[in-house]
């Protein structure tokens, strides 16, 4: 049995997969913020998971990013090279809101009073210019202990080229205070740019104590309940890591939650032969968009979370403030806007009757008839449509427009914004949406899938089974992954393959050791080398897969060709005459887990009458009149069943819209496949 649990801000989603039958059970319980482990165990009970029978337990959590957002992590000290005490607190010295002449930088995770310096200097080749001063390090360690610090982040200049001084500091520090955890920058990132690497290190140190406490507690409660399987955590960069690695390198947990959905999308795509997939996860507050090309999620080697950079590989997930709770408002110019502020879960949309006064996307969708007031979370939430109407009416009066027009406008504006978010991760990265299917999930994804797809020219939208729990489902499909990288600047044509191979020998040895300690045999290990490359003189790089971990000069033409092609694809041009440089060598070490099978859906009868729930009138903005939508119960549709829009398909956690001209077919795994009528085809 495999179990996955996705702990989000509001709900904890649980999925149980019986590997023999392929059957899945899914459910949600409320997240218990004070002790998230409690919610996890409640979830187990609710789905009836027997702890002793679980072979794999895969877990994703927003614990780390929440600690960053609310600045509630550990008391961290930052240690760096003498002369550079301020590099972390200073950041890159930019002023993003550039017309704000009273701008204040976001609060740093470490105050200046806890930033320390130690003598010892390397150059960019890793050669020692000034030796490390161990006595000084000992004094600094003592001062750190005296300040009551819980966690230490160490980043010395050029440690990506030579980690000796960081290792020397760790040794000294452990002699002084073995009980305090230390994060060394080079263990997380062997890539240059001291601020970004320092920030990565600080993030890790900042969330380490809280993550360790949580994971240790959860694990011991599971073990007490008879758990004897493998405990895995989903990683920001894709795949999973073992409990032990997660305790050591929690920086990889920052996108642990949303990564699950993307992994699930990649898995489902392979299963139904749609390896190019855009994933859209729409919740109450935000929308996450990501892109899977040829079966692999796209990964960025540097990301910024809440103004804090993190330079480790991370799935390219673009998040915007657009969700069911997004608030509609009138701007200074007198025009209707929607989001990014959200009413969240509390008070939530006006129709939730929890005191929300402002009209939200959900209120608007209810008002024009898209949503069924009796089907919110399968009827678990009481809805008052009159409150939605009153909230929208206030806006309508402010704008001097009709109630229905404003409600329909709110839906259109937010859908356009979401299409914009998808454009960022597709068109702006050089991918054409017509070559992709759009897989939509989360509470609201199915609702907006068809219109987002149409706006971008995506031909097919996919609504997976259990869209409300899909991130948790994705977590069941992981492999164990370790990423390694080393800055290694060399011209491509005049490269010495022996030097690169030496780097790869070291990286592969690290990978083998890590996978062996995770319990993977040689036949369960896979190594994926790639290089970040650029035209000489550029700074931005393109990541290019390499043919193997042992390179020869014969490989250079192939690598060159791949680089030019990738540069053209991503940036719209290539410079065939210009010399190419390798900047960073990367290696992904993968421990392959047995891949579970999903159960196929039962075949449908072809007769939709049994699934029919009648029809609803829905206001149509284009014509200004109401259109009749047929309503169906998804639970009563079977594989092969097919229907045409205008129709609405309801299930407990989600509502799927099939608009005029669109056609829906239920796929063999129960996924809904909506063929999108392109503009000009129809309506």
């Amino acid at each position: 049995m495999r179990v996955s649990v996705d702990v989000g801000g509001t709900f904890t989603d649980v999925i149980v997969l019986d590997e023999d039958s392929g059957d899945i059970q899914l459910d949600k319980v409320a997240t218990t913020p004070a002790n998230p482990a409690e919610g996890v165990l409640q979830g187990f009970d609710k789905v009836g998971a027997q702890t002793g029978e679980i072979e794999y337990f895969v877990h994703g959590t927003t614990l780390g990013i929440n600690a960053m957002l609310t600045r509630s992590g550990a008391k961290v000290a930052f240690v760096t090279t003498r002369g550079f005490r301020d590099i972390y607190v200073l950041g890159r010295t930019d002023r993003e809101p550039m017309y704000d002449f009273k701008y204040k930088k976001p609060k740093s995770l470490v105050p200046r009073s806890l930033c320390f310096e130690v003598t010892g200097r390397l150059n960019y080749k890793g050669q020692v210019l000034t030796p490390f001063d161990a006595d000084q390090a000992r004094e600094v360690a003592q001062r750190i202990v005296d300040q009551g610090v819980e966690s230490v982040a160490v980043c010395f200049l050029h440690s990506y080229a030579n980690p000796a001084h960081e290792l020397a500091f760790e040794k000294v520090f452990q002699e002084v205070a073995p009980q305090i955890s230390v994060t060394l920058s080079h263990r997380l990132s062997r890539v240059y740019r001291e601020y970004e690497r320092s920030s990565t290190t600080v993030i890790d140190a900042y969330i380490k104590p809280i993550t360790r406490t949580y994971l240790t507690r959860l694990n011991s409660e599971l073990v007490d309940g008879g758990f004897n399987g493998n405990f895995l955590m989903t990683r920001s960069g894709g795949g999973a890591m073992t409990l032990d690695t997660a305790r050591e390198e929690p920086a990889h947990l920052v996108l642990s939650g949303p990564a699950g959905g993307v992994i699930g999308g990649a898995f489902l795509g392979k299963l139904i032969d749609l390896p190019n997939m855009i994933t859209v996860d729409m919740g109450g507050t935000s929308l996450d968009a990501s892109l899977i090309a040829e079966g692999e999620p796209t990964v960025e080697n540097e990301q910024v979370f809440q103004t804090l950079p993190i330079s480790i590989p991370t799935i390219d997930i673009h998040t915007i403030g657009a969700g069911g709770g997004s608030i509609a408002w009138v701007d200074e110019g007198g025009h209707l806007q929607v989001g990014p502020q959200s009413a969240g879960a509390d008070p939530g949309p006006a129709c939730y009757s929890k005191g929300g006064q402002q009209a939200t996307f959900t209120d608007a969708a209810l008002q024009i008839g898209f949503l069924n007031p009796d089907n919110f979370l399968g009827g678990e939430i009481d809805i008052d449509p009159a409150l939605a109407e009153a909230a929208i009416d206030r806006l309508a009066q402010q704008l001097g427009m009709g109630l229905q027009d404003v409600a329909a406008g709110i839906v259109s504006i937010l859908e356009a914004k979401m299409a914009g978010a998808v454009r960022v991760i597709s068109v702006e990265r050089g991918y054409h949406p017509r070559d992709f299917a759009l897989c939509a999930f989360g509470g609201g994804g199915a609702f907006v899938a068809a219109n987002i797809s149409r706006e971008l020219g995506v031909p097919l939208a996919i609504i997976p089974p259990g869209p409300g729990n899909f991130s948790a489902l994705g977590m069941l499909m992981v492999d164990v992954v370790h990423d390694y990288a080393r800055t290694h600047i060399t011209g491509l044509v005049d490269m010495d393959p022996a030097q690169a191979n030496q780097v790869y020998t070291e990286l592969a040895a690290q990978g083998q050791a890590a996978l062996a300690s995770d319990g993977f045999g040689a036949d369960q290990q896979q190594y994926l080398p790639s290089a970040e490359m650029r035209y000489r003189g550029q700074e931005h790089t393109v990541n290019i897969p390499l043919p193997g971990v042992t390179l020869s000069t014969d490989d250079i033409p192939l690598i060159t060709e791949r680089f030019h092609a990738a540069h053209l694809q991503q940036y719209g041009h290539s410079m065939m005459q210009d010399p190419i440089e390798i900047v960073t060598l990367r290696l992904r070490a993968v421990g392959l887990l047995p891949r579970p099978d999903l159960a196929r859906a039962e075949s449908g009868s072809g007769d939709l009458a049994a699934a029919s729930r009648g029809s609803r009138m829905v206001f149509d903005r284009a014509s200004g009149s109401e259109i009749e939508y047929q309503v169906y119960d998804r639970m009563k549709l079977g594989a092969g069943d097919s229907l045409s829009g205008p129709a609405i398909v309801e299930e407990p956690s989600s509502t799927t819209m099939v608009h005029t001209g669109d056609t829906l077919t239920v796929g063999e795994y129960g996924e809904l496949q909506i063929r999108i009528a392109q503009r000009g085809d129809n309506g």
Partner: protein
Amino acid sequence: MVLDPFTLTIIQEQLQAAADESFVRLGRASKSPIIYEVLDYACALLTPQAELIAEAQGVPGFTGVLPVAVESILEKFGAGGMREGDIFATNDPYSGGGTHLSDVCLVGPVIVDGELVAFAANKGHWTELGGMAPGSWTTDATEIYQEGLQLPAVRVYDAGEPVQDIIDLLAANVRLPDMTLSDLYAGVAAIRVAEARIAAICERHGVDALRASIDTLLQQGELVARTALAKLPKGSWEAQDFMDDDGFSDEKIPVRVRITVTDEEFIADFSGSSPQRPGPVNGTWARLQSSARVMFKSVTAPDYPNNGGCFRPVKVICPPGTIFTAQRPAPVSTYWEAGAAAIDLLWQALWPIASERLSAGHFLSICGTNLSGTFDNGELFVLTEPQAGGWGAAPARDGQNGLVAQGNGETRNIPVEVCESRYPLLVEQYALDITAHGAGRWRGGRGMVRDYRLTGPAGHITTTYGRHRIAPWGADGGQPGSSNSASVIRAGSTQAEVRRGKLARYPLCRGDLVRIITGSGGGRGNPLERPPDALREDLRAGLVTPQQAMEDYGLRFDPETLELLEIMPERREFARQVNLEF
């Protein structure tokens, strides 16, 4: 044509997205650190009449300057003289370019079904454009002919094809042709993206919808500006100040402004400011106008996206031939000094009516730094970067430490590790500079110290740091900040051989050290009112020395335990007068 308002909103968002995408595309294709690290460039979409539709930009210094470039192209070629795929270049400071020769504007007409529907334009600081100094700016030029190659609105792409003669001419006149041409190609790529996105909008919604959307966008911008203007008090406010010098004489340069706010207009009149000077600190008209727009925006609607409508109430008055409105052939390569002076003048004049939206005086100067030289193999390198410094105290908050100046925005420092990998330089320290300045009830933020040691055989340092002679201003009883400077300390010595605001290609040998110091910002309110707890935090963080705590704040602490030992008589007396607790 009447369109539903939501479609208009949706098209407007797509226009902004097109400008933003051009910006990303340009940055990623460039080979110049001043573009991809420092983001010294802007991308915009404009109407066929050269009004700004949307812009994406890294620096406020380029706010609304692209319309001037497009106007100059329109004037020369006329809408009828343009073909699909054409791209024009201008860097003429007195007309089209509006700043200095290094900033090259590229303009592409967007033609859909034979009709001109918009312009896509960008302006970037190209690292090298020839002239007397590597990097194409210096503090000792006396006429524009020394400052680089002039591109007086020329066609560089003809119906989609590069004009090879112009490109050859460009390559032959610059020191780093590979870098310069990559800047050109990056700009072209950005224009092509914008063209494609606008064409897609027209295909999806129609040209009429695009036009209607743009019209309402500009009206909306104007409405926002007028609404904000109505909230400002009406009347006139003046400020006078000095710029340090022009690099040739020590004479301070007097500048002044009179702001008049009426129901209809925000008028900034710079009449009475110094005539243009022999050195290159002169600015030109477009940048002066931009300065007024930036300050208007900062005190009205700083977060509202820019379009032509937003600036309709702003009117700038200044006769030709002043330090702000220099005429050919005045040198202008460090034009940002005049631009900064104009901003700071407006800032001081606005203080009585908008101090809740502003900080006290900051280090102000972009602190342009140009370190050039050779590698051991003889190859040339040019490092151009602005510096971060201390900001003045904000309303009820201490000033920010180490942020880029007013003219810079999303402008990032060059990482030490990148710098040392790319150039024969060793950065020996990069830290806050803790001086005895900027005291106040709310403190000024701290400036920076950055040391560069030359490890290559030979080089030159050029700097233009205003606010070297005259420190950033304090407000409401706060003390002034400290000044900006660049020093050279020879190999083996610890004493500075020279310490100035402006250096022009000052020669360096292997092992010499350049020390860059930027100022602390001005304080706000009487330092004697700063609470002891706040000061204790300052001491703990090392942002104030025990000495300054005693002298400026009247509190003596134990430097080890941070225990308050003594309240100095001056502070006691002050507290007694104003009836304040210590």
